[in-house]
Structures are given as structure tokens and as C-alpha cells.
């Protein structure tokens, strides 16, 4: 970007960009519209050569978001997608090839432990005070959010910028800035299942023998299985997110038993596979992610996302949250740019974008400004859509009057009973999961 205000002797002038931004900020504040994205506090001529590499899973690190960020911020943003396991391996073994690591709670814990990320100063995150307290305090409306597995709150704080252990309780330093999250449950074909599914046990109901599928990412697939078995009253786990060897054995043995009885048509590992299984009529019920259910519906095939609200200490959604971590090698201008980038992220455009395919922003107050009132009503308030709903790319998704499965955002989030994790016994769990796979 050419900057006409830069003086020829290299002395820093006020960049046109920040001037424009400043003017816009004033206008924005006046109009109360808040459509302003990160205000660069560093100079345009210095940042134009900066490139930030944001690396993570495809549902969280989205090219369209990076492109918009680059447009608004004036430096280059490259989004790179890897699957969950390739991502954590990359962060740990090649930390210098990544600038912003997209981390789930358990990955943040590992990355901190390995010393590949640096603490993020909470006060430099502009919207930090507007974050939902789910993330910053582990509660919502005064209600404690369950901490089975690794909750985003649990993985948020470290004591000092270079601490390698997570800190229980609020501090000045963050391991990551939460950016997108959701509550996962079951997807099913209402026309073929024949009743409303509100309990995980339906997934293992012999009625759906050969027509059910389960998620095959061991660390979280086992939690889906645990939710099923707890729902069916077969076992009561101490902590589904950190099972004992005995609980792992019970769960995997039960899975093997179900597999041998022919319960599972298949298992799936990627978003696309789950859509394919449901859309091709291979299964009628399976553990599923919210946007995958939407993707099936876009194909004109009825599919419902089961609301599995917590009852009698059973059921509940499996929650997950991805946040941005700063790699340790970031310093100087690049570090400033990374902070700008994270502040841009939380300023609403991205929040609105991910909301349009069924995920949530940790700062709904800014996301709201970038959504139409109708969109907010549908996605966050759980009320009938006042007008047709489209996905982030403008493809029609739902007709007017549709109500989002699982209801309002608060209904869903307060019914999360466990969070994505990596168990202490993960090596053992993995081995047992492979027993299930090969059985």
C-alpha cells in the first residue's frame, strides 16, 4: 500500500490509513454502529510487509475471514488448514513455521507445557471485558459451567507470560484468545427415526442397528460414547473428560460389543464424511456437528440437530472452543500486528461470519453489530427466523419461520456437560480405541 502521507526522509507521518480509521471511528462512535474493525496503532508503511500465518483446523481457520482481516488491517494474512492432530504436531515440532496457532483448550495446555506459545496480555485485548464470562470466569449468568474435560476457562490463564502450567483462577496473562465455539450433539433424520431425539442413548438403540455412526477422533469420540452410555444408565463417570483406566475399559468394551452386534454402519473423522453418511442414506442417526447438519439440510434432506439438554445429571452437549495463541517467536512489529489481528477478530466481522454457519462468537455483542436483526434472532435468540436465513456465502439455508435446533444460545451453552480434551490416560485410551476399531 502506497502511503502518500509518509515523508520522504522516512520520518513517521500520520498514515492515511489511521487517519481514515480515526475518522471512521469518530463517525462510528457517533452513529453507534460500531462497524469499525481494529484500529491500527502501528504504522501502515511498516506493517505492509508483515505476514501472519494463522494455522489450524478448517472449521475454525477460514480463508474468507483471513482475507477480510488482510483487507481491513493492511498486512498479509495466510490461513493454513491442518487436521487436529497434524496441527498440534506442527505447533510443537515446528513452532517457527506458525505465527498464530489456533488452539483448543487441551492444545493450549500442551502448547504452554512445551513452551511454544507466549502469554497474551489480557489488557491489550480490547474486547476482553466484553467476553462472555463462560470463558473468562467459567460461568454464565452466575451459573458455573461444567468442567469435565478441559473447559475454555480452565485453559485460559497462565500466571506469567512464560509459565508452562495453566493457572486456576483469573490472571493478567492468557494462553489464547477464544474465537469460536459450539456445542456438539447428535444429528438425525426426523423422517426415518420417527420421534424427537433428546437423549444420547438413541444413538445406541438397537432399533437403529446398522444405521448409526459415531465420531472416530478417539479423544472426543470416546466422550460421545460416554454420553451415550451414561444416558442409557449403564455407567456413571467421575469425569467423562478424564476417565480412569477402568472407565476407559468399560467404554471401549461396550463399543466393541455394539460394533460386533452391528450397531454402527460406519465411523467418521471429517465434517464431509459425516455429511456424506447422512445425505447418502447410510445412517439415520450419528454424532454430528451443527454446521454438518445444516449442510445436509441444504441438500433438501431433512436432518435435525438433537437438543440434548442436561437432565438428572445426564446428557448435555460436548462443547469445544478454539482460540488464537501467539507463538513464542513473535516479537516487535510482528507481535504488534498479531495483537491487531486478534483485536480485529473480536471486533465482530468474524463473529458474525461464524454465527452464520451455526457456531458462536465469545463476544456476541460485537458480532451482533455485523448481523441483521433477523440473523441474530435466529442464530442467538433461538426464535423463529423472521426472514429466510442464508449461510456466510449467501446460500439459502432455512426458510422464514424456522427455529434453530436446540433453542437459544444460552439454552445450548448452559447445557454443555463436557469439553473437548486430551485425557491423562490418552495413550491407554488410544490403544483401547484401536481395539474397538479393529474388532
Amino acid at each position: 500500500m502506497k502511503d502518500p502521507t509518509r515523508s520522504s526522509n522516512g520520518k513517521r507521518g500520520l498514515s492515511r490509513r489511521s487517519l481514515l480509521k480515526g475518522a471512521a471511528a469518530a463517525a462510528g462512535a457517533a452513529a453507534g454502529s460500531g462497524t469499525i474493525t481494529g484500529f491500527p496503532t502501528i504504522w501502515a508503511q511498516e506493517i505492509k510487509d508483515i505476514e501472519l500465518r494463522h494455522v489450524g483446523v478448517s472449521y475454525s481457520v477460514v480463508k474468507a475471514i483471513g482475507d477480510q482481516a488482510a483487507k481491513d488491517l493492511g498486512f498479509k494474512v495466510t490461513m493454513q488448514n491442518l487436521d487436529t492432530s497434524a496441527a498440534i504436531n506442527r505447533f510443537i515440532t515446528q513452532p517457527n513455521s506458525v505465527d498464530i496457532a489456533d488452539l483448543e483448550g487441551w492444545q493450549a495446555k500442551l502448547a504452554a507445557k512445551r513452551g511454544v506459545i507466549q502469554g497474551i496480555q489480557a489488557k491489550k485485548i480490547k474486547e476482553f471485558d466484553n467476553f462472555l464470562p463462560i470463558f473468562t470466569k467459567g460461568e454464565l449468568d452466575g451459573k458455573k459451567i461444567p468442567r469435565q474435560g478441559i473447559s475454555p476457562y480452565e485453559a485460559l490463564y497462565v500466571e506469567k507470560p512464560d509459565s508452562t502450567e495453566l493457572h486456576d483462577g483469573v490472571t493478567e496473562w492468557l494462553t489464547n484468545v477464544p474465537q469460536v465455539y459450539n456445542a456438539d450433539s447428535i444429528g438425525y433424520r426426523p423422517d426415518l427415526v420417527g420421534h424427537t431425539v433428546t437423549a444420547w442413548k438413541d444413538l445406541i438403540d438397537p432399533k437403529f442397528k446398522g444405521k448409526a455412526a459415531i465420531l472416530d477422533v478417539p479423544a472426543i469420540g470416546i466422550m460421545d460414547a460416554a454420553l451415550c452410555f451414561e444416558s442409557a444408565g449403564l455407567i456413571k463417570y467421575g469425569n467423562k473428560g478424564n476417565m480412569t483406566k477402568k472407565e476407559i475399559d468399560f467404554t471401549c468394551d461396550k463399543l466393541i460389543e455394539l460394533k460386533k452386534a452391528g450397531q454402527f454402519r460406519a465411523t467418521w473423522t471429517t465434517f464431509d464424511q459425516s455429511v456424506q453418511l447422512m445425505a447418502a442414506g447410510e445412517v439415520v442417526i450419528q454424532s454430528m456437528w451443527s454446521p454438518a447438519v445444516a449442510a445436509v439440510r441444504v441438500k433438501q434432506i431433512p436432518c435435525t440437530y438433537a437438543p440434548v439438554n442436561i437432565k438428572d445429571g445426564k446428557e448435555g452437549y460436548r462443547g469445544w472452543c478454539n482460540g488464537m495463541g501467539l507463538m513464542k517467536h513473535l516479537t516487535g512489529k510482528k507481535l504488534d500486528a498479531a495483537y491487531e489481528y486478534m483485536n480485529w477478530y473480536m471486533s465482530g466481522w468474524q463473529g458474525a461470519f461464524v454465527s452464520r454457519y451455526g457456531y458462536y462468537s465469545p463476544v456476541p455483542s460485537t458480532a451482533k453489530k455485523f448481523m441483521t436483526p433477523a440473523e441474530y434472532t435466529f442464530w442467538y435468540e433461538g426464535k423463529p427466523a423472521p426472514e429466510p436465513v442464508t449461510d456466510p456465502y449467501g446460500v439459502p439455508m432455512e426458510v422464514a419461520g424456522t427455529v434453530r435446533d436446540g433453542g437459544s444460545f444460552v439454552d445450548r451453552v448452559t447445557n454443555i456437560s463436557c469439553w473437548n480434551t486430551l485425557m491423562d490416560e490418552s495413550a491407554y485410551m488410544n490403544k483401547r480405541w484401536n481395539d474397538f476399531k479393529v474388532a
Partner: protein
Amino acid sequence: MTVSRPLVGWLYISPLMLVLIPFFVLPILVVLVASVFETDGFGGLIPTFTLANYRNVLTSALTFNLYYETVKFTVLTWFFTLILGFFIAYFLVFHVRNPLLAIGLFLICTVPFWTSNIIRMISWIPLLGKEGLINSALLRIGLIHEPLTFLLYSSFAVVVAYVHQLTIFMIVPIFNSMARIDKRVVEAAVDAGASRFDIMRLIVVPLSKSGIALGSIFVASIVMGDFFVTKVMSGGSSASVVGAFYEDISVLQYPSAAASAVVLTVILLAMVSLILRTVDIRKEITQ
């Protein structure tokens, strides 16, 4: 200028060494070293010397089950690719009189390989699925009343995908060795009153042995070292040796993954050397 003979020898092999040492020998050494280390459970390696990783791999029933599954797929794939590859090559060499046409048909065999093997594999799914082409057709003509579920997400589907992907690796070397069979030998046998079966048994098969061996090495080592086809085509209902240690890596259990990798390498080396004992590859290549 004269250069000493050993030096010339080294110069000749240096390009190969320049590739092999950094891209094969060093990585293998790293894996070997990692396999005797301990892990802290968070992706960190503790430099020690322990055989515990090997003990765990070698004493686990899981390892046995995984090898059973993988070897099962290997043998089935090997068998079907061998039958197909052998007869396709036989047809091309002995039945197509026009050499130009034979080369043309041979090239046609490679057409499916112009697309990625992932696409070739995935394209079976709409064909074999519950609501796929085969099931719909069979249902319509009334041969079946329920869709056949064994077609997809089953061992059957895995073998179909492997055979489709790997038959060419049998055709090429077998075609190559068959093409070198002196036709006069066959004619002489016919004149001497040999039956078609005798010709096949006493001339074609023995003289194609090296091609069969090479093709078998390709097919067996590819299937043993693959996990993706098994994962997708079995719908995750089966596992493979490589798939299991990939899962180990996903939870950062590097040493146990490394130990599994070393065990697999040793088993593959043993298998290849067994196959090589049946033929003299050196003779084959220099001929």
C-alpha cells in the same frame, strides 16, 4: 588426469547417496532413536535407552489384531491384482498381434491413474452405497429387497479399492518380463505338442517370475504401508497398522509410534527379502 578407481565408484553412486542419506537414512535413524526414548506425555522426548516401547508393541494383542487385518488386506489385494495383472499382461503380450496396438492398450490401462488415487477411491462410494448405483439397480430389477450393506464400509470395499488402485503395479512388471519371452520357445512347445496349459505352466509363468515378484513387492509394501484406503472404505470399521501409529502421533506418543514404525519396517524388509530370494532381480534388470 587420472582418478583412482574407488573414487570413480564413489562418484558414480554419489547422486543416489545425496538423495538417500538426507531423505531416507537420516529420518530412519531419527525414528530409530525416538523408539528407544521415553515420552513425558506432552510430546516431549526424554533421552534414555528403553525397550519398553518395543515390549509394549510386541506383547500387545492389539498389534497382533492390527497385523492380522493388514495382512488380510495385503494377501487379498495381492491375490486379485496378481490374477488380473497376469492375465491382462498375458493378453497384451500373446494375444494382441500388433505391437503398436499392444502398447496402445497398455497405455489405456494407465488412464485411471491420471487422476489422484484418492479420487479413484472415493468414486466407488456413490457406486457401492446403500442408495448407490449397484443397490438401486439390483433393487429395481427385483433381485434384492433390502440394499446390500456389505458393498460399502466393509472389507469388501477396501479390497475393491486396493485392487483398483494397484493392479497397474502388477501389469507393468509382468508385461515387461513377458514381453521378453522369446516367442520361438512357445512355438517350439506347440510344435512339440504342449497344451496351452503346459505352455502357461512350464514357460510363461516361470519366465514371468521376476515380474510377478516385482509386482508383488510393489503391491504388498503399498498396502502394508497405507492406512487411508482402509480408513475410508471400511467406514472406519477396520483399522490398519499404520493407522494405529498415526493415532499415536495424534496424541503425541512419539516413541510408541516410532517403535511401531520400526517393527513394520523390519517386517516389510523381511517380506521383501523373502520375495527376492525367489528371483534374481539383478539379472532381470541388467538383462
